C-alpha cells in the first residue's frame, strides 16, 4: 500500500500541506473561502513541526502503521483497518473519548473542530481529492506518496 513518507531535509516549513489538507477536507470549492474558517470549519490532519525560524521542519500525519494501537485501543470500534492496511475512522461511531490520542506514538490523530469526535488522515480517500492533497501541492517533495 502507498503511504506518505517524509523527506525531512527538503521541508521548508511553509505549512502549505496543512492548508491543502484543510481545503481538501473542507468541502469548499475554492481555497480562498477557507479564509477565517480554519479551526471552526476544518482543521488540518497533518502537522508541520519546527519553529518558523528554526532549521528543522517536517510534516507528520497518520503513518497507517502495522500495529495500529489506535485501532486496538478504540473503545467504540470506530477505528478500523481496511484490507490493504489503511487506518480509517467512522466519525458516526466515535464518541470523542480520545483514547486514540492517548496512544498514538506519532501524535497523528486529533479532535475534529467541534471536539466531538477524533479525525485523522485517510489519504484523501474520504474527500473529493481521492489522493493525498498535501503531497500533490508540496513545493519541495518533502512529503511523497509511494510504496516502501
Amino acid at each position, binding site marked *: 500500500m502507498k*503511504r506518505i*513518507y*517524509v*523527506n*525531512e531535509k527538503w521541508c521548508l516549513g511553509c505549512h502549505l500541506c496543512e492548508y491543502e489538507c484543510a481545503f481538501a477536507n473542507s468541502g469548499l470549492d475554492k481555497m480562498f473561502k477557507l479564509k477565517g474558517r480554519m479551526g471552526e470549519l476544518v482543521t488540518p490532519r497533518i502537522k508541520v*513541526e*519546527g519553529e518558523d525560524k528554526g532549521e*528543522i521542519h*517536517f510534516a*507528520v500525519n497518520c*503513518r497507517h*502503521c*502495522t500495529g495500529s*494501537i489506535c485501532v*486496538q*485501543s478504540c*473503545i*467504540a*470500534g470506530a477505528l478500523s483497518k481496511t484490507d490493504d492496511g489503511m487506518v480509517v475512522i467512522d466519525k*458516526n*461511531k466515535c*464518541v*470523542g*473519548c*480520545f*483514547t*486514540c*490520542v*492517548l*496512544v*498514538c*506514538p*506519532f*501524535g497523528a*490523530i*486529533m*479532535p475534529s473542530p467541534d*471536539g*466531538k469526535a477524533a479525525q485523522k488522515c485517510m489519504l484523501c480517500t474520504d474527500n473529493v481529492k481521492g489522493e493525498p492533497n498535501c503531497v500533490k501541492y508540496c513545493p519541495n517533495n518533502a512529503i511523497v506518496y509511494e510504496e*516502501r
Partner: protein
Amino acid sequence: MKYVLIGNSTAAVACIEGIRSLDKDGEIVVISSENHHCYGRPLISYCLLGRVSKENMLYRPENFYKDNGVKTMLGRTVAEIDAAGKKVVLENGESVSYDKLLVATGSRPFIPPMDGLDGVKDKFTFMTYDDMEALGSALSPEKRVLVIGAGLIGLKCVEGILARVKQVTVVDLADRILPSILDAAGSEMIKSQLESLGVKFVSNDCAVKFEGNTATLKSGAKLDFDILVTAVGVRPNVELVKNAGGEVNRGVVVDAKMNTSLPDIYAAGDCAEGYDMTIDAKRILALLPNAYFQGRCAGINMAGGVESHMNGMPLNAIGFFGSHVLTAGVYEGEAFEEKTASTYKKLFVKGGRLVGFILINDFLRAGIYTSLIRNATPLSEVDFELLKTEPQLLAFSKEVRAQKLARKV
C-alpha cells in the same frame, strides 16, 4: 483446532482477531452470559446521554461473527471448566470441548454490605448493556439519584443521566473524586466543573443504612433519593479458573503469553492479572485497551504464534461534558506541573524516564508521552525541555525521526 472463548467483550473480540490473523479455518465458539452482539461497554453512558445510538454501540460490525466463522452461544453461562477433560460445562449440563480455551469473563460490580439495601426498590449497577437499559427506563425529570462511588464508572454514569433527572448526588469514601486517576489538584478541577453543572458531592463518607428511600451516611447525614446507583468498584470473575485449580491471586494469574497455570487455558481482560511495566509487577488493569492487547496476544498464542504482552500500563481517556482527562502510568518521582484555570498538565519522571502523566484539557498528541513510557525511553536521548512544553517529534534525534516518518512502520 477448536477454540472456545468464555466471554464476548473486548478481550474475546481481540482474541478472535488474533486467532484469525494466523488460523483462518479453526473452529471458534464464543459462549457468553450476555445475550448481545459485542458492544463497546464504556459506551453505555454515551447512549444514556444520547451521544450514541444503540445501533452504533456495536463494537464490531453486525456480520463480525459470520465473517470470522465464529459460532456464538449467547445468553449461555459456563458453570465449570473441566481442565483434565478439556471441556467446559454449561449451566444446563451441556458440555463443549476445546483444544484451546480463553477465559475472558471480565468483572462484576462490587456491592458493599449496606443495611436495608434489599428494601431499596430502584437500585442499579452500571456496567452492562442490560444495566443501561434498566437504569434508562427508571429515569425521569422528577427523580433524585444517589450514586455511591465517584470513580470512573460512577462519574460516567452521572454524565449520562444528569440532564434526565432532577438531582444527582455522589457519595464517596475517598477525599476526592476519581481517586484512581487524579491527584488532588486535578480532581478538584473536574469536581468544580461538575458542581457548576449541578452535581452534588459528599466526600469522605459512605452509605451505611437504607430505610426506604432514605440513606443514612456514616457521618450521620441523611439523603433522600429515588434511584440508587452503586459504582464503588468491580471484582474480577475468577471463579471458573479457581474452581478448576488454576492459580488465582486477585485476578487469574497469567504469564506474558496470557497462559494461565492450567494447560491450554488462557485468560485476558478484566479477569486477568497480567504484567504492568510501570510497577514491574502483575496486577489487574481493568481498562479497555488493555483487554484488547491481552486478548489479541492470547489469540495469537492460542493459534500457534508467538506473542508477548510485556508493556501493559494504566491508560485512561475519559471526558465529562466537554472536558477531557487523559492519564497514563504511575504518579511517582519528580513532577513537572503546569496549571491554568481550565487546563492541567503534570509529568512524572523517575530514574531518568517518564513514568506517568495527568493531562486535563491540554492533551493534543499525548500519545507521544505515552510512547516514552511504553518504550522506557531514557530522557537523555530526547529533548525533554521541549517535550515539557508540548509533545512533539522534534524532541527526538534525527535518526529516530527518520525511523518513525521515512519508512514503513
